[in-house]
């Protein structure tokens, strides 16, 4: 187990450097004239171009720029964005709100998906099962660019159940609607996986054995079926957490939440290399850690799995 852990961490370090290098190279290739992008359609005065080029090392060749950036990154200095704000400060503002949003969304989706998945797994073909099937199909086919503004218009503007936007320091209540919208991204898949897993386990030998020796139905399902059915779901939820943080670009835009997705979008739009790479680096770490935790959790949940 310990050797496995160490190996994974070392692999993680390699992945981290590889990913940041690729992202940095992509941003560099995309970058044609970030200073002009900053100025919009206005002509950029020569003196401004000169001063900013020097400040951001834009005239250095790629490998020098990357080296410069990595040296900063490893000492904890994320550099400054093209709008002259320290990126570490932008992160300190963006990460907490995105994490809150993503965790909230995960809790909502897990609660709904596990409950609905179990019920429809037990009563396959019933009305509830069919209804959830239809709803999940609709959710899967509605892209978030439609879903988010629609939910905002309906529940925020017309019914006024929730505030229309969440803002920079949202409370529990402000985050409710965006979190529900965001959870729709993953809820459908989670329901299907839970349902399939429960259905499969219900047919397995050990359940038949448990029933045969006269265990109450409640205990059969509550202890034996559930515990084994949730293993794939836990994995899925773990991986989804990373996806939600990275995939909140649309939701954060619609509900005006200045989080990670928004900063990534802004960075790409303004060709702000350091900003994008900074956020992606942290995202890479989040993915690596979450994946590792999920894999370790797997072993805890399922005694059959042993890591060497």
């Amino acid at each position, binding site marked *: 187990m310990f050797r496995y852990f160490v190996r994974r961490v070392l692999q993680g370090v390699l992945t981290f450097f590889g990913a940041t290098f690729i992202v940095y190279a992509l941003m560099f290739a995309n970058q*044609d004239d970030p200073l002009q992008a900053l100025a919009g359609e*206005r002509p950029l005065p020569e003196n401004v171009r*000169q001063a900013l080029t020097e400040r951001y090392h834009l005239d250095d060749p790629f490998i020098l720029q990357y080296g410069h950036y990595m040296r900063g990154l490893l000492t904890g200095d994320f550099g400054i964005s093209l709008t002259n704000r320290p990126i570490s400060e932008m992160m300190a503002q963006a990460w907490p709100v995105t994490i809150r949003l993503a965790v909230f969304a995960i809790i909502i989706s897990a609660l709904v998906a596990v409950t609905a998945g179990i019920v429809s797994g037990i009563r396959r073909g019933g009305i509830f099962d069919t209804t959830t099937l239809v709803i999940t199909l609709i959710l899967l086919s509605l892209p978030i660019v439609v879903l988010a503004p629609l939910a905002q218009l309906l529940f925020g503007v017309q019914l006024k159940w929730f505030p229309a936007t969440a*803002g920079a320091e949202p409370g529990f209540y402000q985050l409710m609607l965006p979190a529900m919208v965001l959870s729709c991204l993953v809820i459908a898949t989670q329901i299907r996986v839970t349902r399939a897993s429960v259905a499969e386990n219900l047919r397995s030998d050990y359940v038949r054995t448990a029933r045969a020796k006269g265990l109450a139905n409640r205990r059969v399902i509550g202890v034996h079926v559930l515990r084994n059915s949730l293993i794939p779901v836990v994995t899925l939820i773990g991986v989804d957490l990373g996806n939600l943080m990275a995939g909140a670009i649309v939701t954060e835009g*619609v509900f005006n939440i200045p989080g990670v997705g928004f900063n990534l979008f802004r960075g790409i739009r303004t060709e702000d290399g350091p900003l994008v790479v900074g956020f992606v680096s942290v995202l890479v770490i989040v993915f690596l850690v979450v994946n590792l935790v999920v894999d370790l959790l797997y072993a805890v949940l399922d005694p059959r799995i042993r890591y060497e």
Partner: protein
Amino acid sequence: MRGQFPLKMAVGATAIMLLAAGCSGGGDETSAADAVISIGLGEPQHLIPSNTTESNGAEVLAALFTPLIDFDADNKPYTVAAESVESTDNKVWTIKLKDGYTFHNGEKVVADNYINAWNHAAYGPNGNGGSYFFERIEGYKDLQSKDPDGEEGPQKAPDPAAKTMTGLKKVDDLTFTVTLSEPFSGWRSVMGYTVFYPLPNAAFASEGVLKEDYEQAPIGNGPFKMKGTWQHDSKIETEAYADYAGEKPKVGGVTYKIYQEQTAQYADLMGGALDVVTQIPIENLASAPADLGDRFKTGPNSVFQFVGFPTFLPQYSKVEVRKAISMAINRKEITDNVFRGSQSPATSFVSPAVAGYRENSCGAPCTYDPAKAKADYEAAGGPKQIKITYNADGGHKAWVDATCNQLKTNLGVDCVGVGEPKFADLLTKVEKKEDVGMIRLGWIMDYPLMENYLGPLYGTGGSSNYYGYSNPEFDNLVKQGSAAPTEDEAIKLWQQAEDILARDMPVIPLRLGQNVYGHSERVKNVEVDKFQKVEILKIEATS
């Protein structure tokens, strides 16, 4: 079990509604004059006057600072923080400041505040985006330096020869003179721009160097002062400055709420969480008049949208071809259907936001006449294929395609719209003299003078003359206008210059911008001016 679900949902919904009611039910005890109103905003790039050339920053700075000059309804300049701005030869301008104005930290506003701020703004290595506004002042060139081996080279630019402009001189505490390198009758209007605000001594860490964190909480001389610091991506709070010497604002404070998307601003306006939206996004224009009723408003601004003909493309070199294309475009149809009235047809080469604007100075070539257009086009032997290049990130596809369809129908030619990812990509192609066809361009004025359209857009080597139009006769008239002894005479000469444009047709004027804005029931007297800023001294709270 099945039956329980709807009930649970109903209970949940009720709970949420109660929660919502509890949140919004708080009584509003403050009177109208103390009320804090909110205005929607995008994240500003900077809040240093000399580095603020985009509208978000300018909007906030207009509350924090008082300009020397402002403009009345006819676009004529009048003094605000200045007692008088006078010149006998349009070269040496004497500016007398009003007594009694103070910065928010209590410092008295004196001539040195302007001189120091302007020198800092003009000093090349400071990299201020608005420094080119100062290039008319004598000595500006000495504050710049050129990189000896170009941007890519290893050498760094040497320090400029001087740190202060010779054209700025203090006479006494409240008087200073500005000497221009050439006479310019419109200088009074130029000084109305954001970059000409003064800076307090407290803004400087040492001589000529601004404090790092000054822009996080700018100290100005305006009707409102910062409350706390700039909360990036969130909000900027201001409150009325009690010791303000000028016209007092009618509200207790303004909170600028920062949004990434205009649609989110509009949703908040509808949801009751925002008071003013200065630009209603095109997605909401269909429903906005009904949603807002008489709180939906429009007014002119200075935006001018047009397409240019790169002079290096031989197929558009005949003026008859250019005029025929212009005649074949039904501008009204596009502004009504694509822009839903948020823009209006342009038939002149300058915007109505400037004094001297004449309606339809372009004349027949800008009047829709498909039959004559086709006849002229064929007679002149126009190209079989027309191309319009635009930047795809600016929402231009819809109208470019519509224009192309009109040209196809009316001229019987093939027409394609080509989207480049960004405006900079479009410029790169133009620089390389590739076949880009007509290019989409737009312009927002910096100061309300005809010259601010004529010079940069059509002058030889003008800063935004990307198509390379050059006519010495035109240049000469613009120059004479700038040097004319009075503003009225200047306007006359500039109008003659505009007539040359109508003859040469270097670009096709297409549309004029409109401010399309809306506000909540909590505020009244909301006006958005031609610079797309809310009239901060007029706005009032209703209760």
